[in-house]
């Protein structure tokens, strides 16, 4: 085995374990970023240049930042709750693991093992990926684009402000007056709007 592969694999696995077991949420997020980067490196090592770089761009660049933002904007205190080892969720978890393992093992047992064939990995350039996306796989590409657009519109709708009452509350917040709407401050709000 390759020395570089061993290093990358150990780092990826170790950071994945750390991401699940550390107590500090931000540390977990950073460890997960390392896992993502490790997976990208594995792709690069397998000569899957485009997939590796896209993995880096999407997961390290976008998903990680999204997670970090979510943690910072939602969490106020570190969870200091004691975790019991034996709880209903652990029992269910072990049950699920056992079920999956048994079904996988059964499937593997029934599979006929073929002798390995020597296959030359094709050299896939970015150009060929683009050509394939624009010809053979244009429909899936369009469907994904539609889905993402729908998701974006949904996000905009969620983030959009309610037209009138929310607006005057916002002006009040700027003016430094309390949030409760009493008639007097409502008047100032209207004045400020004009």
């Amino acid at each position: 085995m390759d020395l570089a592969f061993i290093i990358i694999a150990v780092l990826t696995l170790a950071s994945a374990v750390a991401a699940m077991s550390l107590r500090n949420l931000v540390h977990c997020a950073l460890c997960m970023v390392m896992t993502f980067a490790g997976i990208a490196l594995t792709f690069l090592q397998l000569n899957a240049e485009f997939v590796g770089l896209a993995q880096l761009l999407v997961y390290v660049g976008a998903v990680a930042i999204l997670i970090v933002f979510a943690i910072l904007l939602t969490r106020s205190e570190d969870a200091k709750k004691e975790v019991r080892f034996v709880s209903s969720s652990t029992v269910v978890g072990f049950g699920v693991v056992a079920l999956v393992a048994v079904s996988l093992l059964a499937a593997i047992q029934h599979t006929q093992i073929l002798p390995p064939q020597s296959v030359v990995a094709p050299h896939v350039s970015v150009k060929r990926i683009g050509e394939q996306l624009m010809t053979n796989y244009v429909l899936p590409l369009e469907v994904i684009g539609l889905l993402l657009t729908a998701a974006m519109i949904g996000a905009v709708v969620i983030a959009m402000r309610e037209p009138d009452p929310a607006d005057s509350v916002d002006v009040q917040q700027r003016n430094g007056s309390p949030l409760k709407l009493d008639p007097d401050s409502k008047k100032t709000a209207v004045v400020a709007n004009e």
Partner: protein
Amino acid sequence: MTGQLDQLFVSLKQWLVSFLPQAAQPMAGILLSISAIIGAFATMFAITTIMERKILGRIQNRLGPNRVGPFGLLQPAADGIKMLTKEDIVPFAADKLVHFLAPVVLIIPVALALAMIPYGRNMTAVDLDAGILFFFAVGSATELSVFMAGWSSQNKYSLVGAMRAIAQMISYEMPLVLSTVSVLMMAGTLSLPLIVQAQSGYIYEILPRWNVFTPWGLAGFVLFMIAATAESNRAPFDLPEAESEIIAGYLTEYSGFKYALFFMAEYWGLFAVSGLAVTLFLGGWNAPFPFLQWVPSWAWFFAKLGTIIFGFIWVRGTLPRLRLDQLMNFAWKFLLPMSLINIVVTAMWHFSRVFQFVGAREMRWVLCALVLAIPYFFLGRALGEGRPAKRNYKFAE
């Protein structure tokens, strides 16, 4: 003679490597390239800091540093010694490991990005098929470093600065990447040396075939430079470090050599993105005129890079800082639509090259320029209209 000078560094590297046994040669070649890049850009960082302070001094009608050495030219050395000998203060409440790792996480991707750029004929350290994708992929890791620095300092100014920086970098990454798309469309490749090759040659044997001399290239270049200024957190987009508002943003709790590393990484990022601009729009290492081809290709590259850096310094000395809402509106309501329109214009330019009638060349220009100018006018007006109403301060009067 001119050819030898042009290939000076390439043949120097080959000569040095040839002393080693055959097995060690590829590794030694890589190490030599890395050390050459690090050495060259560390020197350039020193030169740029002194030049920036001198030019800013000139713009602000003062002298700038002039005490260390002749004309103050040894100022970077003095700064370096000061940074190295300063105490490295880590806040008591800080997350020590993340605090330590943040500058390292910043400088590694920036150095990797520098390795992608073709500095001259046969002078690309790493020639990847998807070079520009690699550039942006590693560039996205810098946001993470900024977050690490801001969060681990356990300081509200650091956190606010980091949040500002990340929001800004995410917003401006879109126009930055989209404005490069038009170049990739026309060159038909993601490899940076091939993009430079596509811009070689001369129209009528005299005019350079650079991308910046086309309507889409000019618009793309301007969009790219604006987005690049914001990406590298320079004035007028220096909100993350706005010293009059939040001390120094995510750098507040950094001192000594860690601060110097941050500082250097920021300048390296600036060099990397300027180098990309030179490669994509200004013809890379190509000479502007055929009779100037005797000047070595790497000299052209660094001359263009220096010009862009000078432009950055000039802008920094001239423009005031933007407000946060202006920053966001500018990115999402102006730069993003303009860069999308620019892609359409590129397609128009590409498909109108089959026109054969008289005046086709001029008509192509006018058509593309109009498609760019009309949205520019209306988007610019819409940007001005969206100003918030005048604030009435009820208790502050």
